């Protein structure tokens, strides 16, 4: 039975969401093995967001079934006011599922998305929003220049061809060191990175005084919510691996995929310190035991055991 008047009826004004929602998805099921440093990485991510994002925004964190220490940290961040919206999912609904949730639920007109292993540098959001607002039909803007396969930005190339006011330049606009920093963070060898770097060039577009490079990536991007909603829902049946479809869908719908000219975000991966390369280090011979473990059929067997243990607990 209701007794009295609900005082909420007399609240004249409620908090209005900011125009930009910065959204981070985390999945750290335990703190060993691959995920041993992932909580420190997450802290570095959110810490850099706090320090280097002066553009008004709300922070949304979607936790996709992480372990208790991670949840405790996120709750602390939420109660201290660092996180405006904290979504705790008891089950891992996959990255696609998290995107479905965030891209529909996040209240901002603009969503700046990032995986939880991204470090943010000053100006990242300002520059991203500037490009988003300047280039018509901008679909997604990543705050770091990249070289990615052309098939994912054909619409951008078409737009550039057909737009007389845009200046198009082809060349090496991404420094080797900037390129190397990102590609090595993915676990690629220096030799492979160098081969890729030498095999491609960059495209720079300048429109209404604002420059951007042609490319983008789904590990971090800024986009209009209304654009992202056109491509929902994403497949939810696997935790990862289907997110490439966002790149494909945005390009197929004729939207532009762009990056900032400067590296304003950095991919950290699952380790904070750059680990020494493995057996590919030239001139260093591995001990016999290590060489045995790297024999293909031995390694396959070990990998199967390794994956199975993960599936027992989290599959």
């Amino acid at each position, binding site marked *: 039975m209701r*007794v009295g*008047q609900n005082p909420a009826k007399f609240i004249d004004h409620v*908090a*209005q969401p900011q125009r930009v929602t910065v959204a981070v998805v985390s999945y750290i099921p335990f703190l060993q093995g691959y995920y041993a440093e992932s909580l420190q990485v997450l802290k570095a991510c959110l810490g850099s967001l706090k320090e280097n994002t002066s553009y008004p925004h709300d922070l949304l964190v979607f936790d996709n079934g992480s372990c208790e220490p991670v949840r405790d940290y996120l709750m602390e961040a939420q109660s201290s006011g660092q996180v405006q919206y904290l979504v705790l999912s008891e*089950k891992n609904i996959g990255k696609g599922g998290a995107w479905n*949730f*965030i891209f529909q639920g996040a209240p901002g007109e603009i969503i700046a998305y990032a995986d939880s292993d991204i470090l943010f540098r000053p100006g990242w959001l300002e520059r991203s929003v500037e490009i988003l607002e300047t280039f018509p039909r901008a679909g997604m803007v990543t705050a770091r220049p990249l070289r990615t396969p052309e098939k994912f930005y054909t619409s951008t190339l078409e737009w550039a061809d057909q737009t007389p006011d845009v200046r198009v330049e082809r060349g090496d606009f991404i420094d080797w060191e900037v390129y190397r920093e990102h590609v090595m963070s993915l676990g690629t060898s220096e030799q492979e990175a160098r081969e890729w770097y030498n095999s491609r060039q960059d495209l720079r577009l300048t429109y209404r005084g604002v420059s951007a490079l042609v490319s983008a990536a789904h590990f971090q991007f800024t986009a209009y919510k209304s654009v992202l909603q056109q491509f929902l829902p994403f497949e*939810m049946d696997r935790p990862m691996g289907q997110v490439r479809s966002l790149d494909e869908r945005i390009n197929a719908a004729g939207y532009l995929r762009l990056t900032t000219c400067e590296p304003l975000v950095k991919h950290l991966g699952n380790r904070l310190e750059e680990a020494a390369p493995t057996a590919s280090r030239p001139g260093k011979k591995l001990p016999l035991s290590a060489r045995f473990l790297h024999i293909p059929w031995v390694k396959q067997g070990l990998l199967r*055991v390794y994956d199975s243990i993960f599936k027992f607990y989290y*599959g």
Partner: protein
Amino acid sequence: MRTGKNPAKTGIPAYAPRQLGVALLVYIPSQEGYFQQSLEILRYQIDSLYRSTSQEFDLLVFNNGSCPNVVKTLQEWYEEKRITWLVHSQHNLGKAGAWNWILGSVPNEIICYADSDVLFRPGWLEASLRILEAFPQAGMVSAQPNFFDVLDGEGTAHLPLLNDPDYEFGEYLPPAEIIDEYCFGIGADEEQSAAFHRNPIPYIVNRKNNVRAVMGASHMQFITRREIARQVIPLPATRAIYRPETISLDRHMDQAGYLHLSTQENYVFHMGNTITDYLLNELKTLQVSHQPLPRPQSRAVEKRSLHYRAAAALARRPQMHNLFKRLYNFLFRVLYTEG
């Protein structure tokens, strides 16, 4: 730097949401005055949901800026796996603001929304679904007869059906006990109560399947389809509870051609903010108690080989857990580092 392969990419399945998602909106800014018993009432609500819902469901709780003790309790229930998705909003976004979140993001095919003071009775879901399925134009279905036309006679979604021979319209007066319970729940005074007892309410019948529903639905509790929910947002949201804003849900629903409908029986009950003897009797009937909240049923797992299941069962034994953990760490070191 990335070292090793993310095990989440090994092809394990992600959680697939159930057909039904229930979303509760919680705003308990303090545990005094009007809100003194609100947390306990919320607990009864969740308990009644689990006891009265015949199919598995996912539970989303939207915490719209409640006080620390309520946050702590919600978190405990979440840790105990009573809640599937727990959304903490730092600030109160208002009812319409929270609806924008909920109706936009709940992934389940059928979405049930409820305020945090609604008691659920057995049969609520079946009765609601029967109406949702019997009327293709149904937009929202409440599990309690609707006594109040929120659109003030300006609804238009039903007009195309007036001359349709497959549908019959009429008015009726619900049984007195149903009206009494409704009046009790909202704290109606004598005059209001007399009016409810006097004025019949409209109904609609689908002649093809002979299903009857009351015209009108309530913001207090309703079910809708996910696709419809996505169509009716965003709603304006500047105040906490503001009729012109909450009514925009109904306007959008009606303008899109969807009907507001409700059941003829009281399958839900408005508990309000005060625990009464009436409520306590009801809780006793439902076997809702101060025991720990029921757990959701676990889903049947995909059939795996005997060896796999045996190994997985072994891995979950506490004594083996540490051993598997150490093995896992060792394998990560040898496979992905020089270790």
